[in-house]
């Protein structure tokens, strides 16, 4: 078969942002399937809640303060997250470096808060199904926190090396994109874990 060149592609850029880039779609794909996991876990909670004679199956609902603090920190972190995303687009290295450090610190802070949350549930995972659910929900979200914080730390380190150029800026904005998902996924869990038992 003969090949007849009709188009020249040499002028195309070598990386892009957002929906232009395959990584963005890959991230979206993982968000969708992880979101499905969250939704099903929430479904399992509501299902058992619906079957139970009373709720919570413990003397008292969890202390909501750690969770509320977590929610506040996560919501506030959306602001620097937006900034780092923008700095990534602008390929402004010093700004990206500064903001990534901010995001890393916030990330580490959330990991600590989450630890505190676990201690204030007032129910163990092996006490009853309600306890199991709380630990599962919190644990599921925890793994996402850890993953993204880990990713942020590595990326921050990377942006201080000679690799900090080109496509790495697009990686910065994809990392920020995922953090929004971590925030968004938390909100229904927060309501479910801390406020549904107080209804």
């Amino acid at each position: 078969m003969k090949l007849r060149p009709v188009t020249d592609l040499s002028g195309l850029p070598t990386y892009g942002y957002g929906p232009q880039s395959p990584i963005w779609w890959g991230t979206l794909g993982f968000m969708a399937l992880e979101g499905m996991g969250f939704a099903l876990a929430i479904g399992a909670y509501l299902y058992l809640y619906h079957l139970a004679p009373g709720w919570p199956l413990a003397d008292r609902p969890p202390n909501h303060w750690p969770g509320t603090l977590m929610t506040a920190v996560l919501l506030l972190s959306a602001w620097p997250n937006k900034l780092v995303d923008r700095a990534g687009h602008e390929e402004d290295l010093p700004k990206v470096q500064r903001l990534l450090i901010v995001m890393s610190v916030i990330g580490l802070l959330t990991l600590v808060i989450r630890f505190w949350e676990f201690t204030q549930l007032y129910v163990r995972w092996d006490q009853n199904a309600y306890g199991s659910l709380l630990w599962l929900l919190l644990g599921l979200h925890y793994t996402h926190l850890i993953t993204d914080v880990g990713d942020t730390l590595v990326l921050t380190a990377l942006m201080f090396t000679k690799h900090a150029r080109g496509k790495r800026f697009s990686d910065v904005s994809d990392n920020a994109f995922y953090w929004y998902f971590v925030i968004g996924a938390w909100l229904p869990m927060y309501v479910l874990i801390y406020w549904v038992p107080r209804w």
Partner: protein
Amino acid sequence: MTDVAIRASEKDLRDTDLAAEDLHDRLSRAWGAKSGLIGWLSDVDHKAVGRRYIFTAFVFLALAGSAAALMRLQLARPESQLIGPDLYNQLFTMHGTTMMFLFAVPVMQAFAVYLAPLMVGTRNIAFPRLTLFSYYVYVLGGLMIWVAFLMNIGPDVGWFAYTPLSGPQFSPGKRSDIWAQMITFTEVSSLAVAVSVIVTVFKQRAPGMTLDRIPLLVWAMLVTSFLIMFAMPAVMLASTMLILDRLVGTHFFNYAEGGDTLLWQHLFWFFGHPEVYIIFLPGTGFVSQIVGTFSRRPVFGYLPLVLALVATGFLSFGLWVHHMFATGLPQLGASFFTASSMLIAVPSGLQIFCWIATLWGSRPVLATPMLFVLGFLFIFVLGGMTGVMVASVPIDLQVHDTYFVVAHFHYVLIGGAVFPLLGAVYYWFPKITGRLMSERLGKWNFWTAFIGFNVAFFGMHILGLMGMPRRVYTYQPDLGWGPLNMVSTAGALLLAASFGLFFINALVSMRSGAPAGNNPWGAGTLEWATPSPPPVYNFARYPIVRHREPLWAEGDELPVAHGLMVSQRELLITTLTEARPDLREGTPDGSIWPFIAALAVAVAFICSIFWAIAAVWGSALVGLTLIGWFWPKSVTEDVT
């Protein structure tokens, strides 16, 4: 600045003015795998990964098939002493689990890994390292469960492992843990491949391949990948909860502590029903390609066929409860799920009409792939009919857990998926290996499979109606089930022989089959534009697509694009709907890290069966390997 430095040299050479030979040499160097064992383990070429994936899936088919043959030998006569109840339990569990999780789903995804990039006209799959990683995770998961079986700790609670039977109280020991962990392995791997396939189809289609020019098989793979994405998390969640119940004392499925056993069934079947379509839709894709090629005309009803795929995808999520009719659901709920179960017959029926309309009056070439398609049509229609029967609650309550159901789902699974799959192997084998499979052996293969299958499974409908329950290791002579069981076993052996012929045909043809040339069947889609087997870089220049069947429409001159780098791997990224060229993006070279990461995952998963705490240090280990994986190894990786 540094950008300029890199651009200056030879490195930035483009394919534009290179002659064919020179281009081939340079592209082969840029895209080729490194030599040696490490190079082999690191190869991220989607064709290499796809070939290994397909091969491995067929190994699991052979293993699961052997388990089936043993079961059939045991059941041939009443009160047979060949196999005891414990081993029998392990056998049907291993058979069902392997067939569903280690053969049927992976083999379809394996074909997607191999074919989707070629059919959409790109040089590699999106996220090739992730795809390689998922292959290793899959192999290690399969290895784990079969080694466990050989050590007599194979799972024995059926392929859907209902609680409370599979829970800590009724299944002490490690058998159910092995099962649950194998699920997690395979789902991780399926999900990763699904995302890679989706992004490949979304962003890497050749310029001009608008949504309505995507080959039907690729549509099927796309819809299947979405089904995987939304169905598999359910079973992963379920298997995680099960293993937590078993290992750290949670109570998700423990009725006494506020849990619920039916929660397991809901989660499992929320996945389990779409699973059937995950297996079946790629089968319909194979059928569409084969029917089009052998009737020498575009498949009738492209748009309805695509819509049928999408509709089936959506509907398949509204059906899971029909597996639970025997659990005493509220009346209204049951009626709803009966209606939706019957509704899904509509798009399937529509597809069948479109294929028949394509074949009508076309004098199709009856080569082996086409025979398997015709066999599929016949068997699948029968399976669909019994499916509509069991979708109705009163019938289901009668035949629930009998051989009627075993017959039904083998008609659907073998008819709907395995027959098209075998047809697909005959059809694409020449592309993959460069040689045609023997037609003579192929005809023998088909007829023994077709006759053997029907002899093995038709009688099971009647056995079921006579009351023979599934999952029993033997039965008394006075029940009168002996003769039909003997017939069924004879059929199963014939079916097994047909698979023997298939494997022989494949092995012999790989060495000494007739050379295939680029396009032995005169097909119209892009994979046939490449040599057979395709070079590592797939396409010397990116094809430009102006028709649904480019090779039929363009004659012997294919319009192509140029301007890509030749010194390093570069992919063309296009826009989602119109496939306009958008980026020239780098794609990873081979890497050993996916293999190392998969090993770490295996260590974490397997150790956590024995020491729960391994989940923690195991995850840390996996995290470390991921850092090794993603940390850039050279500066060129940053710019491209």
